[in-house]
């Protein structure tokens, strides 16, 4: 049986007013995602984060979002009002942002931030809420959930903070997670732990994941397929196992400019950008 896609987007365009009329920061974006891991890769200004924000209904004014269609489980997202978006974000789509220091509430204990979400979605007693929160903290690989439950965000390391973020998001059992640079503030060891945790959760709970990052090799290792964005447009769509089969000169340039043992101490190729890449 073929499953309907979790999320399907067609012709998504995000624009902001500029001096000479609207400037499109995302152009004609198309994606169908099921219970899989899709990476969106691009450099700063490529529109990858704006795409994520548009999917979450978080494009700030005066930005304008247009699309032929945007559906989550078949439900039309374009006609949602503020309340509708909020419900969708809380319950159906979870998000993880780059730096837990900014995305957790600094004056609230971790435990309270998790139970706050629980209270919104389920009618259970205080004791049960605490129980559930501790369970979730343990599920994201936190060894001493009691301590983290009572801790404020500043008392946690970057990796712990990111785990707490993931825990807070998992409470509402989302079907789709959008992670925007979830590991780029973390060091390599912690990065691998957080990625492994995400991988386990996504696989075990059958969640769809959109991973947004500038780190092409990391995304290639982690995801099933990759969309490469350049100046607002997807220029290449790839099977993550076959990065070497990339054909677009931008993708190939991004791979070539990475330091590697073969180029050790030598001048790295720099990326020369072709204006033609901006035209579909």
């Amino acid at each position: 049986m073929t499953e309907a896609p979790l999320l399907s987007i067609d012709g998504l365009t995000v624009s902001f007013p500029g001096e000479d009329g609207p400037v499109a920061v995302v152009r004609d974006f198309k994606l169908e995602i099921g219970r899989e891991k899709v990476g969106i890769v691009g450099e700063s200004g490529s529109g990858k984060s704006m795409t994520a924000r548009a999917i979450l209904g978080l494009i700030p004014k005066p930005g304008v979002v247009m699309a032929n269609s945007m559906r989550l489980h078949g439900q039309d997202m374009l006609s949602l009002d503020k309340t509708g978006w909020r419900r969708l974000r809380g319950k159906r789509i979870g998000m993880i942002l780059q730096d837990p220091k900014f995305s957790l509430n600094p004056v609230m204990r971790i435990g309270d931030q998790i139970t706050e979400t629980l209270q919104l979605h389920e009618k259970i007693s205080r004791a049960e809420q605490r129980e559930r929160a501790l369970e979730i903290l343990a599920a994201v690989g936190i060894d001493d959930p009691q301590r983290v439950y009572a801790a404020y965000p500043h008392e946690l390391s970057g990796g712990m903070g990111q785990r707490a973020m993931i825990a807070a998001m998992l409470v509402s059992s989302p079907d789709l997670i959008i992670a925007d640079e979830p590991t780029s503030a973390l060091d390599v060891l912690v990065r691998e732990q957080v990625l492994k945790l995400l991988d386990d959760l996504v696989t075990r709970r059958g969640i769809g994941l959109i991973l947004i990052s500038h780190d092409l090799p990391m995304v290639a290792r982690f995801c099933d397929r990759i969309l490469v964005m350049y100046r607002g447009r997807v220029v290449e769509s790839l099977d993550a196992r076959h990065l070497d089969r990339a054909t677009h000169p931008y993708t190939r340039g991004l791979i070539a400019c990475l330091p590697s043992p073969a180029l050790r101490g030598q001048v790295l190729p720099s990326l020369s950008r072709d204006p033609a890449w901006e035209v579909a």
Partner: protein
Amino acid sequence: MSKAAAITISGVDVYHGHGSQRFHAVRQADLTVAPRETFGLVGGSGSGKSTLLRVLAGLLSNWSGAITLAGQVLPPGERPPRSYYRHVQMVFQDPYASLNPRHTVDRILAEGLVLHGFADVEQRIRHLLDQVGLGPRFRFRYPHELSGGQRQRVAIARAIALEPDVLLLDEPTSALDASVQAEILNLLMAIRRERPVTCVFVSHDLSVITHLCDRVAVMQQGAIVERLSGDDLVARHVQHPYTRQLLAASEGLPA
């Protein structure tokens, strides 16, 4: 001019905070860096690598032990004399935070030159801007008008302006896109070729470290746990389990 740059660090302990809050950030570090060498300090967050770099930069004074840099003895427990900063300059990780947003590029570059009594400041600034690949049109711009890579070029220009013997680099490319990282790494290599400068490069990214460094020290929880050559890293001749973990993680393999 001072004699050729080299760094000797022996028995160095660094602390953050005082009394019962005191944290032992670096434990008994011993290192020597040869003139014109590029030396890498690698480790995860909290390993003490940046702390040690800040001590060398003269930005932290709560330490004990002995440090000599470019023939200058760095006095423990106190702020080094102004002349010390002529010998050592630092480039920071975040080019968005390390430049004064209210100063033009011209003023950012001129400040150190004037402070240290350089003549021909004009000419030096023009030369510096060429050297870091920016050119004269950037001279009177403000940091907010520049991209991350351009800002990092300004930060590098500021650091080499005083013709230091030692350049300290704290994750200078980790906030940048891959293509910009390549350009900055190329720039650093060009500077190293053109000037008799010794570099200490801190990063958790082993591919960047391997690319630039002759030798590497691996730090874990404040202690140096392994010393390696760049060739060892390429050939994976590593002994310590922590170094193995770092290598595996940087390639996304299970340790």
